């Protein structure tokens, strides 16, 4: 093997990912006194978190004082169709308000209520106005605030130690390709600088994964190029497990026309602020799609729905505000029934319902975005929208309190979209931003604690580094293989067409076959050019991650014979209480994905007691209901 230069660094905690969860984790690790590295695949501050528009859900009760963590917890479990890890949902509901308030001490400027508190807005699936927001650029505010907090910590370190990078350093445009182990313990991470193509090795006893999602495996997606499932794949290869991988959220309202904005989200707040969905006949069709479980909370007539915007206490909500999966399915049905727009979506109309000034004031960046990107004036014409791959509920199986990855590996933590369990089968809008903060902080803190408990630092083995170098250089050294762009397109076609929003057994089996073929081709991919900022090479290295994560999704989707949240099987259209008791767990066995069933942890009595029996009856098995009855009997 020829000699390869590798830059070596020693850190206590390495955080992979510089979005909301990663930055929050890094802040916590640094506050705990650990020498912390942040690995950012893009430039610092460009992470996908900036795309979040709606807001961050936290039961602060600023707008409706009846809101509290119990109500938020209930909404989250309901939204996730009771498949959530209850403990994560509980921690999230309890801790989000503090995490949001903390951001204000970092300099965040949220929109305000009349009495000067943080304003909160309505959102699909949330019972009360709950989303702290800044116009429709909340994600940008969050990332910028955390970025600036990190800068302020670096300024403190500069004063104390003379260097900004003394205790927390950002490695921007750096990709990690491999985690390195010492036995079952994390020993470090290996990757490359995108700019120079030079290799870099981090020796660190604790790694926090915060790499986000997997959307780039889909044709129509709102996700950026970074979302190639890196963290999911790194975790699998290090011996950790993934859960809930069959659950992908297709945001119901992505733009489908024109192509310059295809996939881009139209935030739910358009509907929260009065926007309605219409089919090509001009019919407001959502009234036909209210499922029984939600019947009681949603309006039956347009008149009642319209009254709700001004008088939410005495009217039921408009069905446009149903959880995302319901809206996505409804749109899909309308389009399939031939009542869609020419581009295969439906109309989202706010232009005819609000004045131009009000739309511009409430949705400024949305207005500008579509005006400039696509020359579409949302104050004058309806938008053409349809489902777009948006979020993966599944991810690294973690301990709910610490974020430590389950499986055989120690020293590995995960937070944010890359972790699984918190959102169950479907995530509520607004819950992801608060998820990033709550579990980012927890993962960072517990990673720091873990390093304290460690006797000796795990050592990186030379052989593992050599293997990682070889794998990374392989695509450049081959000139016989296919183009990574072609392979990505083919992968996107398989996932989009066969493992998309509506799934069938035959198609899923077919997809697994095609993924196996793709695996052979990806193993032989070649990239032309050199190492210096070569996007073709970068994609070639990302492909194997996308592929293994896609295999997990396809396998789990084939296994789960029911429809729930972000997983819809045409051949099993109903929810099945038996399946609610099961998490599908993916692990890597050599090269192949192994799927196992694992029972869901049972909710604590005081938490299950927050729900009506009638509601639980829709989700629980008869035995579980009997237990619940016995429990309430005791209390009386």
């Amino acid at each position, binding site marked *: 093997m020829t000699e390869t230069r590798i830059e070596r660094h020693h850190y206590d905690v390495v955080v992979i990912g510089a979005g909301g969860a990663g930055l929050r984790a890094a802040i916590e690790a640094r506050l705990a006194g650990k020498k912390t590295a942040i690995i950012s695949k*893009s*430039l*610092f*501050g*460009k*992470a*996908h978190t*900036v*795309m979040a528009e709606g807001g961050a859900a936290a039961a602060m009760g600023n707008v409706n004082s009846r809101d509290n963590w119990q109500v938020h917890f209930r909404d989250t479990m309901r939204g996730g169709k009771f498949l959530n890890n209850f403990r994560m949902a509980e921690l999230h509901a309890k801790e989000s*308000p*503090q995490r949001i308030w*903390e951001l*204000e*001490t*970092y*300099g965040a*400027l*949220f*929109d*305000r209520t009349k*009495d*000067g*508190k943080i304003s909160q807005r309505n959102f699909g699936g949330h019972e009360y106005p709950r989303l702290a927001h*800044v116009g429709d*650029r909340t994600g*940008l505010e969050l990332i*910028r605030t955390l970025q*600036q907090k990190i*800068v302020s910590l*670096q*300024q403190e370190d*500069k004063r104390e130690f003379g260097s900004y990078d003394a205790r927390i350093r950002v490695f921007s445009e750096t990709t990690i390709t491999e985690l390195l182990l010492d036995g079952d313990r994390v020993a470090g991470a290996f990757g490359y600088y995108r*700019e120079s193509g030079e290799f870099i090795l981090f020796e660190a006893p604790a790694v926090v994964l915060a790499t986000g999602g997997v959307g780039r495996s889909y044709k129509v997606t709102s996700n*950026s*190029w970074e979302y190639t499932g890196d963290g999911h794949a790194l975790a699998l290869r290090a011996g950790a497990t993934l859960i809930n991988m069959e659950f992908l959220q297709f945001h119901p309202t992505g733009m489908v*026309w*024109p*192509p*310059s*904005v295809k996939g*881009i989200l139209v935030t739910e707040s358009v509907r929260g602020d009065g926007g309605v969905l219409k089919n090509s006949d001009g019919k407001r069709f959502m009234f036909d799609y209210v499922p029984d479980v939600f019947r009681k909370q949603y309006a039956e007539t347009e008149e009642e729905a319209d009254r709700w915007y001004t008088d939410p206490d005495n009217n039921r909500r408009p069905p446009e505000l149903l959880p995302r999966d319901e809206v996505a399915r409804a749109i899909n049905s309308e389009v399939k029934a031939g009542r869609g727009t020419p581009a295969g979506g439906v109309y989202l109309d706010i232009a005819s319902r609000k004045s131009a000034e009000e739309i511009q004031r409430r949705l400024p*960046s949305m207005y*500008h*975005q579509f005006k*400039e*990107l*696509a*020359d579409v004036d949302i104050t004058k014409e309806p938008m053409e929208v349809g489902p777009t791959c948006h979020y993966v509920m599944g991810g690294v199986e973690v301990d709910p309190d610490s974020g430590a990855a389950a499986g055989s590996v120690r020293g590995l933590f995960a937070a944010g979209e890359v972790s699984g369990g918190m959102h169950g089968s479907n995530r509520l809008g607004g819950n992801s931003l608060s998820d990033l903060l709550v579990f980012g902080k927890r993962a960072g803190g517990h990673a720091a604690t873990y390093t304290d408990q460690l006797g000796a630092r795990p050592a990186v083995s030379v052989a593992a580094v050599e293997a990682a170098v070889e794998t990374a250089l392989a695509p450049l050294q081959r000139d016989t293989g296919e*183009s*990574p*762009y*072609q392979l990505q397109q083919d992968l996107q076609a398989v996932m989009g067409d066969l493992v998309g929003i509506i799934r069938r057994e035959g198609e899923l089996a077919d997809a697994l076959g095609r993924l196996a073929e793709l695996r052979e081709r990806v193993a032989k991919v070649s*990239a*032309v*050019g050199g190492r*210096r*900022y*070569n*996007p*073709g090479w970068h994609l070639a290295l990302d492909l194997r991650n996308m592929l293994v994560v896609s295999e997990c999704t396809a396998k789990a989707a084939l296994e789960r014979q029911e429809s729930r949240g972000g997983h819809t099987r045409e051949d099993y259209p109903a929810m099945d209480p038996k399946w609610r008791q099961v998490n599908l767990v993916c692990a890597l066995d050599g090269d192949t994905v192994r799927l196992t069933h694992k029972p869901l942890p049972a909710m604590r009595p005081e938490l299950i007691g927050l729900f009506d029996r009638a509601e639980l009856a829709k989700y629980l098995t008869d035995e579980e209901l009997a237990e619940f009855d016995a429990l309430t009997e005791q209390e009386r």
Partner: protein
Amino acid sequence: MGTKRQFRIWRGDETGGDLQDYTVEVNEGEVVLDVIHRLQATEVPDLACRWNCKAGKCGSCSMEINGKPRLGCMTRMSTFEEAETVTVTPLRTFPVIRDLVTDVSFNYEKARETPAFAPPADVAPGDYRMQQVDVERSQEFRKCIECFLCQNVCHVIRDHDENKPAFSGPRFFIRAAELDMHPLDARTDRKEYAQSEMGLGFCNITKCCTEVCPEHIKITDNGIIPMKERVVDRRYDPLVWLGNKIFRRGQVPQTSVTSGHSSGAVTAGAAHGGVHSHAGGSHDSGAERQAQQGVNWHREVPHPTAPAVDSTGKLPLTELTFDRAAAPSPFGDDVEFPLPAEHLNFAHPQQDEPKH
């Protein structure tokens, strides 16, 4: 359905490079970044270009398109003639890494040098109270997506590397302005700092930064000018200078420019507008007078105004088309010095008190 279009793209690295011609298919409704992606997927897989969201929200795909600093994802192909060759080059102000990717670390260094938000000492998390009207002015600047187009276009550093150490650039002037206008920021020397450490004085308000801002932040009018005005208030406002000539030195009390943070002013904006009420007088005018202790300007402090744009919505001004070599006067071209006495708006501090 697509048409063939001509593209010229700069390719190379720090050792040099040149424009290369490509013929590429363009479909209806596409933007320049779509075309670059098509080139990567077909002809030139190693064409280096930054991008992330492809939705005008992350500010990654900054480039110069036909010489104008733009975001690739926000430049619609329909804005060009069908026969027009589209020339794409990397940002000129920053060193090239490869093709369209430049080394923008200058900006991250300047970000680290800009003092961070200083939280008020006695306010617990959750107790922050601010009025919408007071946070809105800072919120305008927090819309910044850090595309660095304003930094790229700023002529202070565009072809003057030697100015870079002393000059933070428009992006960080609005960061300073944002913190200065933050109702609860505990630091009181933001504008002095901007003047002495960030090189605010280099800026001579050509407004090129405002013109290229994809977020339409009024960088100059709402950020830089208010910061300058308030520094100028004390440092070298010609009116104060004149006042000092007319009155004996010391008789004119100096303006206390730094916003007077009353201690424990948690509800700063809510209680009274005394903290950040300089540009616009949108707050309690009594408090404003008090803050200005003595120098009773008696002038309507001008509201930040939108720049005069032409029919295309652009300023009728670029570095290249400007009709003179030097920068325009920060006071406007219609002002001559010394000012005629009747135009002065200086008033005696005690002039409002009843005469005996």
